[in-house]
């Protein structure tokens, strides 16, 4: 097992840099999944939009409008209401809508003025914004109509509020037994793991493999009595050990974060199998890239292009349901697409209901990617062995 031992020896020399990557990626995986889970939890509550209301009138009418909107939406209080702060919060999605009720709002309403009663701001053409626009229009129209019919402001507010409460309930009809993820944190953790495992293996394992492709070590191994097949098997075993260690290093903390009960539940185990298969794919890809003698500087760029590119195209960072049909058609040719599809399905993060057949199909396709990449690795290493230095 000399090559296997040599592999571990080379890997050990890089243990500090691997630890640095490990700490960073573990922080990344936990924070990302926590942040996305929080974000989605608020998004799924019956279209409650984070809204910022600046009430400068502080009258009965302005209070009524504010209360009507806040009965459905989430109020966001900011430290400052400067235009720059409001723009920042709108652009980066912390708030979806800004309503400013100017001083004299109630006076204008009583005087029958309906033009530009309030000032609003939203991202152009955003559906969230149009939704709130309609609600404001609805309420102000009813209020101004009541006032114009001779009612006082408190009377008008009372009439409109009674009419609002008498609105018909929405009927619901379900077509399939789909469960929305109650706690999506674990599923997002596994989703981000695809990016983390890929970059971690590319950044950590590739340099070790590239070391074995360098002329001195390659010539030393080539002149030994060991058969090329045995050499490859031992190198492959080394990679498997390394990948297993990386996979375990991310799976063991998940037991601490989510608890053994959740990880060892049916869905948890299916996620574990999925991540293990994806680790195989990432290892095969790393083996393939390791056949090229790429300098460390360029290797960073390549691993980030592959990792971030796959992350954005396959739905790790952007939900798959938001990606266009063309993008999704193209991303089907990437293994991360099938990995993410499984986590989405298991966690109820998409509209696709869980089906064991689809799960098997996705795992099967991931395995096909593994075999294809492994074959490419064998072909490439054979080609590089024959090519002159």
């Amino acid at each position, binding site marked *: 097992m000399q090559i296997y031992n040599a592999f571990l020896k080379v890997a050990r020399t890089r243990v500090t840099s691997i630890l640095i990557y490990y700490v960073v990626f573990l922080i990344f995986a936990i924070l990302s999944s926590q942040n996305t889970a929080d974000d989605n939890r608020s998004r799924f509550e019956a279209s409650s939009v984070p809204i910022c209301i600046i009430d400068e009138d502080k009258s009965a009418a302005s209070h009524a409008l504010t209360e009507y909107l806040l009965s459905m939406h989430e109020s966001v209080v900011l430290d400052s209401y400067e*235009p720059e702060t409001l723009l920042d919060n709108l652009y980066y999605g912390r708030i979806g809508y800004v309503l400013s009720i100017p001083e004299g709002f109630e006076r204008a309403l009583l005087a029958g003025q309906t033009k530009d009663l309030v*000032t609003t701001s939203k991202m152009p053409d955003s559906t969230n914004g*149009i939704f709130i*626009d309609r609600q404001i229009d609805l309420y102000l129209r009813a209020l101004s109509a009541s006032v114009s019919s001779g009612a006082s402001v408190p009377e008008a507010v009372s009439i409109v509020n009674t009419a609002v409460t008498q609105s*018909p309930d929405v009927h619901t009809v379900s077509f399939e037994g789909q469960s929305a993820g109650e706690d999506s944190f674990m599923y997002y953790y596994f989703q981000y793991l695809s990016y983390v495992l890929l970059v971690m293996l590319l950044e950590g394992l590739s340099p070790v493999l590239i070391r074995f492709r360098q002329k001195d070590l390659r010539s030393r191994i080539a002149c030994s009595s060991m058969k090329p097949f045995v050499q490859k098997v031992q190198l492959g075993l080394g990679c498997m050990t390394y990948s297993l260690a990386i996979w375990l290093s991310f799976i063991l903390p998940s037991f601490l974060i989510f608890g053994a009960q959740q990880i060892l539940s049916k869905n948890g185990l299916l996620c574990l199998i999925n991540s293990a298969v994806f680790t195989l794919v990432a290892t095969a890809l790393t083996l393939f890239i390791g056949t090229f003698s790429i300098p460390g500087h360029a290797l960073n760029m390549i691993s980030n292009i592959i990792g971030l590119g796959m992350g954005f195209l396959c739905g790790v960072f952007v939900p798959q349901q*938001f990606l266009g049909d063309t*993008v999704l058609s193209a991303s089907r040719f990437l293994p991360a697409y099938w990995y993410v599809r499984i986590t989405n399905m298991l966690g109820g993060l998409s509209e696709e209901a869980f089906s064991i057949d689809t799960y098997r199909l996705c795992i099967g396709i991931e395995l096909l990617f593994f075999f294809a990449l492994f074959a490419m690795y064998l072909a490439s290493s054979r080609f590089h062995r024959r090519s002159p230095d």
Partner: protein
Amino acid sequence: MFSIIKYTWIRLIRNKTNLFWVLLFPIALGGLFQAAFSNLSSLEEFSPIPTAVVCSGDESSPLLTAAAANPLLSVYRCSSEEALAMLEEQQVDGILTIGDSITLTVDPNRSSARLNQSILQVFTEQCSINAALIKEAPAAAPALAADADFRKEVCYGRRWQDPYTQYFYNLMAMACMFTALSGIYISLENQGNLTVLGARKNCASTNKLFCIIGELIAYIGFEVLLNIIAFLFLIFVYGVDMRARLPLSLLTILISSAAGVSMGFFIGSASRRSESIKIGSVTAITLLCCFFSGLMQGNMRMVVEQHAPFFNRINPAALIADSFYCLNMLESLRRYTVNILTLVLLSVLFCLGGFLLTRRKRYADL
């Protein structure tokens, strides 16, 4: 000094693999971003809501006319069975059943249609409130029917921009931060225990500080050139909307690349450890900084702003991305100036730190 800059440039240009990947990195990732976000903006934009309308009473009901005339709805008239089938096949987002009153039926499992369902709910509320008000106060009817513009829409910045452009700001920030990998080589090539070139330089009579300054200038110039090419490629070939105040954008790239190279130089000088550890440290720091500035998750910058605003003021990636944001979105250049000055300050501190750490490190000390 000139010959140091000249020969450093020649070395950099001859390193074709490095040149190729440094240039390709933002261009390739930009292309992938462009592909991934191509559909997202259109998803954010509002389009009429596909709605099935079932008439369960009088065909001449004013509610039917109101539904058909509403610009927010794309109405399909059908029977209740057809409507349910359309709802199941996700061809419509809701069913409006119109008789004496109006009712809405939706599929609660369709999370992607949640907002459209809520807009439909507002429509049914509107119909019901109008009916209740006319019943309560008939004199209100003309005012309910009248057109009124209650809202005045304002924009708090120079203009509105696609929120997904922020990913390109962060991509440029990452490209500028990755110049730190080049910065590492300045320190490596001056450390005799790590590179042959370092050993050679340690024996030379040229002043070490003089040599490092020359190399810093050469590396910064080279990286700025590559990043500017990539930036121009993004805006002119991919059509990314980052053209506002172009000269200032180029200045941002210059300062940001200088900050990146000097950060790499500082990290490289901080220890005598191997190249792999230095590269690992720089990559990890860069990825972490970019993560917190919103490269992987667009709202991360605001999350940091809420919990640790000071970090946004010193995180180079957040400063770079925010500088592009200020140039494109804000009228005032005050915040941009503060960002740029902070980047300059960071560059100076990194360079001074690097100089102090490499000072008096002779071959015999290593």
